[in-house]
């Protein structure tokens, strides 16, 4: 069967796992999953399973990486060797490096780094089980881990992707859909302001499809943000 030939959405608009176009996969959040870290969080998102831990603020060494006026963020995204169907060989990987960088760029946009001059905050993201959309899960889990570490941020970051299968725009593609997907639009959204700190896209979307994908992401982000707030309130007590 050729690329794009497989029917992934039935005549009633149901997707392979029974979701409607705008639905996201089930999400479970747990905080404090790495007891030795200053903050940590895990997200199960579909069959994605991602753990993020935060260490710091701590002294930045070597000194040449120090910034006089702010903290530096040191963000790493990595896939565990058993996280994929075919074993993921450990070691240097261009994809992981790029995702680490854009994740760092996103988090730097919200963390109040100027509160911690000359220090370093380490953010470690490990994909334990990969389905599809691990970069979104990683970024979202990282912002939860930063919150768990008590690091001040202007907002949480909620990351979610929409894409296109069989010519239909859908939110939060699963593995099967991702294999046949014709586009992918991951975004990192600040739920309180609606601003973006992370944006990537590949594939082919018409202007109207693009708008639809954008809107799906914005809507989904609000729902995910609610779950994130609940997880934090459950551990630390209600806010506001």
């Amino acid at each position, binding site marked *: 069967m050729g690329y794009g030939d497989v029917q992934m959405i039935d005549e009633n608009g149901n997707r392979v796992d029974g979701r409607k176009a705008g639905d996201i996969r089930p999400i479970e959040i747990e905080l404090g*999953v*790495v*007891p*030795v*870290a200053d903050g940590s969080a895990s997200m199960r998102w579909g*069959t994605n*399973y991602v*753990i*993020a*831990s935060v*260490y710091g603020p*701590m002294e930045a060494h070597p000194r040449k990486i120090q910034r006089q006026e702010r903290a530096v963020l040191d963000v*790493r995204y*990595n896939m*565990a*060797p*058993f*996280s*994929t*169907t*075919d*074993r993921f060989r*450990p*070691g240097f990987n261009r994809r992981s490096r790029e995702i680490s960088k854009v994740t760092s760029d996103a988090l730097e946009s919200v963390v109040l780094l100027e509160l911690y001059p000359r220090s370093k905050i*380490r953010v*470690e*993201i*490990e994909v*334990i*089980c*990969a*389905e599809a959309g691990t970069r979104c899960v990683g970024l979202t889990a990282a912002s939860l881990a930063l919150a768990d570490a008590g690091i001040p941020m202007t907002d949480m970051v909620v990351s979610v992707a929409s894409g296109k299968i069989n010519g239909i725009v859908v939110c939060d593609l699963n593995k099967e859909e991702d294999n046949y997907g014709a586009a992918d639009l991951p975004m990192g959204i600040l739920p309180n302001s609606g601003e973006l700190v992370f944006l990537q896209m590949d594939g082919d979307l018409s202007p109207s499809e693009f708008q639809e994908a954008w809107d799906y992401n914005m809507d989904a982000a609000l729902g995910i943000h609610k779950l994130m707030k609940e997880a934090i309130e459950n551990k630390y007590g209600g806010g506001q």
Partner: protein
Amino acid sequence: MAQPLVPELLRAHLAELASRDQRADGRGQWEGRDLSVEVGILERAEGSARVQMGDTIVFCGIKFQLQTPYPDRPDEGGLMTSAELRPLAGRHIEPGPPSPESIEIGRVVDRGIRESGCIDTKDLCIIPGEKVWQVIIDCFAISDDGNLFDAFGLAAIAALHNSTLPGERFDVGEDRKLPVNKTPIMCSFQKVGGRFVYDSNREEEVGGDERIHITLGEGDHVHSLQKGLKGVFSASEFVEIMGAAKQRCSELRKIVDSL
């Protein structure tokens, strides 16, 4: 990383406790931390386990690959063990290529599994001389509060017992359970404050001296030993920890075999 002053205070503290037959977290000399072992928890692995010992948490995932057998052993599959200490698991773990410590752990876990014969490499043969399975044991630290050796060793054997050979996915026959005939168990001891203790936590690791890792199989057969870090120990000390290892290994074997 240089830690000149504080470890000396820690060492003095641990020595003082040891002189009163105590440990920093209140455990007895041969007492392990609270333990939990879960299997079959990772969807993408053909076998998996999660082990928690106190605040030390590890995963182990088993993956299989097809390979061509070595010419001198045409009907035997392969076995590979790796241990990853990613900086996720502790502030003391630096990013970068595998550290000597992580390589040591991987190799010690590997020897215990391999030498116990719990996996008969001939069971991994598909077509002699052409196609055999390679078993890859990936140990992965989530939270390092000490004694990753035992956590990895336990997770590895528990995950192996829980593994399925993915014949269908590789188009070489039906899926079948990986035959695992034995349950080798590693027990680790470290000299802390001048005496050996079982299952040292991170504080004891930082303030302790040499460690000794013992892997025992069925009938208390010894399958691997490793002495690590600086320090000397006597024959009578070794006899003592071997006695403790025999008791603890059989307790842990019961836990793994009941999963």
